[in-house]
């Protein structure tokens, strides 16, 4: 039996993050591996979202015609492009922070090797979070370039949209790292995709306006991170400033900070023996 007076209190997993610049060599390590596979990875990352965009945007767009957003009528392809790019940021960050981070953490034991050097777990988790966000930035940048080439939007505010997508990448990679910390194997991530990400795709106004949904679903959907990302990015695609920008930005930021903290605590618990 553990005697209270004898046992030294182990620090709480919920203690504040101990972060330093030691995350950088870990981030750099992921970059150097990925650089070897960048071209196939690039094609994989942007081909699928673009196929969706072209098939649905032009195919469905012909049926749907125009969609009304905040009293302005826009072509369906613009409506879809501005939503699906948020979804691409989410997917890119989530895949990296789930499957790839799990490989490094659990399968290859890369993290264990790193932690035998003077790099703490907190910095490793930070590096993985930023790396997954970077993958989202990379994907989003490539897709934006193609959208510009296709002439879907020429809004100068796309620069601001890009910054919002960078932030969304951080939010979604932090959320995904929670599930990485809980996973026993790759199969676990199927739950995250089918029970969390797929419903969110349909409840966040990516494919159709949220006005189509019943009131209570809309109230719920308003607090989903993807909804807030879309609410910020879509007007910017239309060369308008989003309404309630502060609130949407704040929701994304709170999700990011809270999710990173939870992910860190659960990862510490996973590594505490």
């Amino acid at each position, binding site marked *: *039996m*553990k005697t209270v007076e*004898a*046992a*030294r209190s*182990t*620090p709480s997993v919920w203690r504040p993050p101990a972060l330093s610049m*030691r995350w950088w*060599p*870990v981030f*750099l*390590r992921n970059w*150097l*591996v990925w650089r*070897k596979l960048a071209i196939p990875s690039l094609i994989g990352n942007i081909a699928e979202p673009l196929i969706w965009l072209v098939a649905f945007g032009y195919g469905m767009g012909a049926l749907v015609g125009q969609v009304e957003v905040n009293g302005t009528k826009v072509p369906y392809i613009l409506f879809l492009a501005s939503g699906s790019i948020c979804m691409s940021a989410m997917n890119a960050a989530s895949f990296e922070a789930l499957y790839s981070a799990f490989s490094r953490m659990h399968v*290859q*034991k*890369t993290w*264990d*090797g*790193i*932690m*035998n*050097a*003077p*790099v*703490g777990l907190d910095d490793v988790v930070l590096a993985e979070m930023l790396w997954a966000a970077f993958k989202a930035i990379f994907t989003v940048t490539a897709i934006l370039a193609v959208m510009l080439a296709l002439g879907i939007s020429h809004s100068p505010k796309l620069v601001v949209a890009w910054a919002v997508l960078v932030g969304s990448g951080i939010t979604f990679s932090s959320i995904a790292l929670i599930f990485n910390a809980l996973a026993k194997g790759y199969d676990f991530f199927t739950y995250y995709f089918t029970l969390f990400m797929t419903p969110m795709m349909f409840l966040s106004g990516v494919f159709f306006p949220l006005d189509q949904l019943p009131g209570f679903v809309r109230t719920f959907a308003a607090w989903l991170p993807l909804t807030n990302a879309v609410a910020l990015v879509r007007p910017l695609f239309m060369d308008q400033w989003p309404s309630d920008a502060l609130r949407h930005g704040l929701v994304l930021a709170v999700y990011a900070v809270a999710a990173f903290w939870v992910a860190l605590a659960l990862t510490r618990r996973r*590594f*505490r*023996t």
Partner: protein
Amino acid sequence: MRPVSIAPLFKVRHLRKRYAETTVVDDLSFEIAPGECLGVIGPNGAGKTTTIRMCLGLTTPDEGDITYFGGGGGALHMPRDALAIKAQLGVVTQFDTLDPDFSCAENLMVYGRYFGFRRADIAPRIPELLEFAALTHKAAAKPGELSGGMKRRLSLARALVNDPKLLLLDEPTTGLDPQARHLMWERLQVLLQRGKSILLTTHFMDEAERLCTRLLVLDHGRKIAEGRPRDLIAEHLEPDVVEVYGNGALELAGAADLAALAARIEVSGETVFFYTQDARRLLDALAQRGGLRTFHRPANLEDLFLKLTGRQIREDG
């Protein structure tokens, strides 16, 4: 217990770790002097790996202190100064954690960066590290293309990237063939000659005897013996062992005339072990019985280990 005469480099005092009902490390104390190789031996589940993990700050002890004195600026304490201590340690874990996507040279470069070194600091050291690991010809190969021994030597080279004073090696030769094991031993001897200190866990008694200045025998988390390998054998064992097998061997264990010639008799499976001060007379007595196969050898570390920790198989590992 033999006191270490020189000021220690690394000191562990009254270390204790429990998991639920089980005490895996129980009041363990030891010191490592500069240039010394301390071997930790013990059956599976004796607490060897947990001890190493506590020394690395990866597992928090329930009680006890771990202090490193090699920092120059006074004593450093685990786990508080974990990063400062690890900056001066080299670690080879039981299972390789090499990066499968990088070549040998890249593995060393990437690992060096975790210590805060720049590319320009590490690059000139890579050829000598590869040469030390006898991997110069494999510089561009990935770990997947290496043999088990090469991987372990790359892990050792990686642990040297920060020129550490103390190396923590957890079963560095497990799973290697004799050639690879001998090459690893030779490299570790070179490191000891260069003045490095080593903490080594192993299941191989010949390895412990060959490399270690001192040995620590652990069982059930407790230190049950400590000392120089030869001293331990002399202290706990008779100088000679006669193993007897064959028809009727087992009945010999109860023979009064043989018992008088042996200090201790052990039976394991179909073999009887006689531990004796006087092997000549014992062998003569055995020869008169006929039909037996005998093997006479000096007592070794394996005998000591089995005497101290028993012959039964440990289920956990």
